[in-house]
């Protein structure tokens, strides 16, 4: 109701609907984001669709990913995929397609020498897709192979993150991987794909971004070409309330592996649109900045104790883009807090899990030390200047700024962060974070043993391959190894890894022993 009021107010004030905070588009025509940089020899084009895997119909999970991969990897009505690849090849061109829960982006960066040739192919691919049976079979097989073999067997870090997603978003449109499930993908037909394209590849769902040294009349031409798409838009996705876990809720995927991957977290009620985001960002950066020494968790687990390659925390969904910077165009209406513990030797899994939760408790109860607070603020002000070095990044952040209701989100952040007070950060931590109610996803071996140790709170002394720690660390270790975790047996599910992603949700079959 509140949102409706806001829309009416904006309408009265004549403000473009695309500026609505945290927004699905609410107009029936194509939006554009332009960033002309005349001197630049390259041009970046992004066609962003406000449709993602959360728009998959029930029982047809993976349909959006399959449909949009049929565009990027499936050829047009006039040219086969191979013919397009051959035409792209001398220009070193391609179309990069990424799909997230609520957003899909087709993007490419091309030298302006080749802009006309590239654009005519891009246009053909997106506006006149080929939808050939042989491409459908090929792409569907690829997706099934990823779900059946690769994800559960060959990439445990990603596997852990996907289990966390399943746990957080049960019976929620976010609650399946972007590629869907084995059963749902098997059911998908070429007609499903065609219909999905027709229903959703419509003007009101599209934002076209163009950046770089393009000719001044180019955007007009693009807009005119894409205007042959039907007007209209997909109704705004209404998401159910996010579900907080009750207590420590654990799912363990059981497999033959020497190393344990852990991801944990819970939904939070704010996104970048919320003023509190900036204070919480400082907290998240201090506690677990992605792949940086600044991360407190990284210092405690990796640097002090050498347990793994890294340990990080995030206050929104994070995907790594270029280098270690955040990827763009993965905007969501709902976000979550998470901790990522990279794989560590199985024998220390219980200790490190305790350590991470204990550090989270300390963060919440004690807040951020003053010196770290000032340091993190300086860091963010400078580090965010590096986020927009490439054309694609500049354009990506520009589009995301609009989604979350800012003219320039990064500039806004650099203005606001220096003014934030420590009390505001510590108050945001207490308001949005907690350590007692967590979803915890674990990929490990001998899950049944781990479960027993977890529910009985068995002390878990750390095993150092080379005992060389200082007295201070050893004293803290004695505390960590006894740190109580209130885990109820009914809150721990152990499931053989290969059962995941066959159907929607978490496989319920408990394992007793690994075969």
């Amino acid at each position: 109701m509140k949102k409706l009021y806001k829309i009416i107010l904006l309408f009265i004030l004549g403000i473009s609907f695309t500026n609505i905070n945290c927004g699905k588009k609410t107009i029936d025509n194509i939006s554009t984001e332009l960033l002309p940089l005349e001197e630049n020899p390259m041009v970046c084009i992004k066609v962003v669709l406000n449709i993602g895997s959360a728009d998959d119909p029930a029982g047809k999970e993976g349909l959006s990913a399959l449909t949009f991969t049929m565009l990027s990897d499936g050829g047009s009505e006039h040219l086969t995929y191979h013919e397009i690849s051959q035409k792209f090849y001398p220009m070193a061109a391609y179309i990069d397609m990424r799909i997230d829960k609520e957003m899909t982006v087709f993007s490419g960066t091309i030298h302006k020498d080749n802009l006309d040739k590239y654009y005519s192919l891009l246009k053909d691919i997106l506006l006149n897709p080929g939808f050939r049976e042989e491409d459908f079979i090929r792409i569907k097989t690829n997706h099934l192979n990823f779900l059946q073999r690769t994800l559960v067997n060959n990439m445990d870090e990603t596997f852990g993150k996907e289990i966390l997603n399943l746990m957080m978003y049960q019976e929620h449109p976010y609650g399946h991987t972007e590629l869907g499930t084995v059963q749902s993908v098997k059911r998908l037909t070429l007609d499903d794909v065609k219909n999905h394209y027709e229903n959703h590849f419509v003007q009101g769902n599209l934002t076209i971004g163009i950046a770089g040294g393009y000719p001044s009349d180019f955007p007009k031409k693009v807009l005119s070409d894409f205007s042959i798409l039907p007007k209209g838009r997909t109704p705004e996705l209404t998401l159910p309330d996010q579900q907080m876990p009750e207590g420590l809720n654990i799912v363990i995927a059981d497999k033959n592996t020497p190393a344990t991957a852990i991801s944990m977290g819970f939904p939070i009620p704010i996104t970048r649109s919320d003023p509190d985001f900036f204070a919480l960002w400082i907290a998240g950066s201090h506690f677990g900045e992605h792949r940086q020494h600044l991360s407190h968790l990284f210092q405690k687990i990796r640097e002090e104790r050498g347990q793994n390659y890294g340990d990080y925390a995030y206050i929104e969904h994070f995907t790594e883009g270029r280098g270690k910077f955040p990827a763009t165009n993965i905007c969501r209406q709902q976000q979550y807090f998470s901790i990522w513990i990279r794989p560590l030797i199985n024998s220390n899994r219980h200790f490190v899990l305790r350590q991470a939760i204990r550090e989270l408790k300390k963060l919440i109860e004690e807040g951020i030390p003053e010196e770290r607070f000032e340091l993190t603020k300086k860091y963010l002000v400078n580090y965010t200047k590096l986020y927009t070095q490439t054309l694609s990044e500049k354009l990506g952040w520009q589009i995301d700024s609009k989604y979350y209701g800012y003219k320039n989100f990064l500039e806004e952040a650099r203005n606001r962060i220096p003014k934030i007070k420590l009390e505001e950060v510590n108050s945001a931590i207490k308001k949005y974070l907690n350590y007692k109610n967590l979803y915890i996803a674990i990929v490990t071996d001998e899950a049944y043993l781990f479960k027993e140790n977890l529910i009985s709170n068995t002390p878990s002394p750390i095993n150092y391959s080379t005992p060389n720690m200082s007295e201070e660390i050893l004293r803290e270790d004695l505390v960590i190894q006894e740190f109580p975790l209130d885990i109820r047996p009914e809150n721990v599910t152990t499931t053989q890894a290969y059962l995941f992603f066959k159907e929607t949700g978490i496989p319920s079959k408990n394992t007793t022993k690994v075969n």
Partner: protein
Amino acid sequence: MVKSTSAALIVFMFLLSPIFSNSSDVFPYDYKIEQFENGLTLVSIPLNNPDVISYYTIVRSGSRNEIEPGKSGFAHFFEHMMFKGTKTIPQKKYNKFLTELGTGTNGYTSDDYTCYFLVFAGQENLEKVVKTEADRFINLHYTEEMLKTEAAVIEGEYYSNVSNPGRRLYETLRHTAFEKHPYKHTTLGYLKDIQDMPTQYEYSKLYQKRFYAPDNTIILVTGDFNHQELAGFIKNYYGNWEPSHYELKTPEEPPQKTAKRAHHHWPVPTTPRLAIAFHGPEFSVEKIDKAALDLIAEVGFSQSSSLYQRLIMEEQKCFSLYPDFPDRRDPHLLIINALVKQEEDISYVEEEIFKELEHYKNELIPEDQLEDVKSNLKYSLARQLGNTEGIADILSFYINLTADPNSINKLFDLYQKITSQNIKEMAQKYFIKTSSTVVTLTGGEEK
């Protein structure tokens, strides 16, 4: 654009003449290269990109330098130790400095070199960066205890990717194909050597003395700064770094006399993998061998190739097919990789790849196909050069190979000269069955 030659006034150093790029060069940026008395080389590219500077330190030592038994992975391990600080700027202070600067602590190790890079905003920070980086390269200080803790992190790094069968296939391929050259092992090293790292404190000091010296190091700076000011900072802060004069004698790989095969069984279900490798030449901007084989790899096995079209699109036997022929200082492997859908099709795919290779030994590639590849390489490079960090990334790689920033342009000039006849000759010279190594990987039964 003509550069000022005023850097010549800096009399304490040997100054190579500033070299200016031709406007038609694929790498169009003007650069300066200077060598200091202690052997340290500085390459700089001032750019107009607003306010971002990339500061790269390239130590020309990688896993190629791990010539002694039991020391595989040491270059990478030492990269980690380089973040331990000095007596004047201990690790915590160093981390704080980087954090305030808003940059991360970044480095990577490859077969031939180790690269440390800082990307940061603000010209006013340049002197602080030079001073701090010089201090850690000259005065690195760590205890045996610190080394032991870091050794455990390396083992953790190994485990972070332990579920990836692609890495295991690559390890097996290199281990099988090479006999004597350190390219036999990957940059991460053998697990048994990683587990022995905690005992290697003394060796780490020897490694540092040999390779972490100005005569084995190049500093590359791109972005928004003044060259003369930078050169002054470098002279001032790196001036007392002592050269090592160490000469590495990398074991020469003997010619392979018989074809080799290896198979790796992966304990859990996985996509079957095939890798076919041939011993190839080292990187060169003068001899055509490597450049010609680069072009064959693209013509024969890239996404636009006819074999790709057949195996991926028509017959749908493979998920992917791609070549990999890294530029290295010593002769490396030309590898053709395939992810095969069904285990029973591995032999078929292998046969088809060998047939394709034979084809290039007997037939001339049409010139227009060759032109397409040359064009692809040119535009691929252009796409990566769009920002200070991209320029530094690309240039640091070529500098590591030759110490000559102009080697990118020389390489692309060489590509332009290569004809179909050259290609045929190189195919005949290198695609010899007895020089091949085939490695397969298949997984456990599906459940």
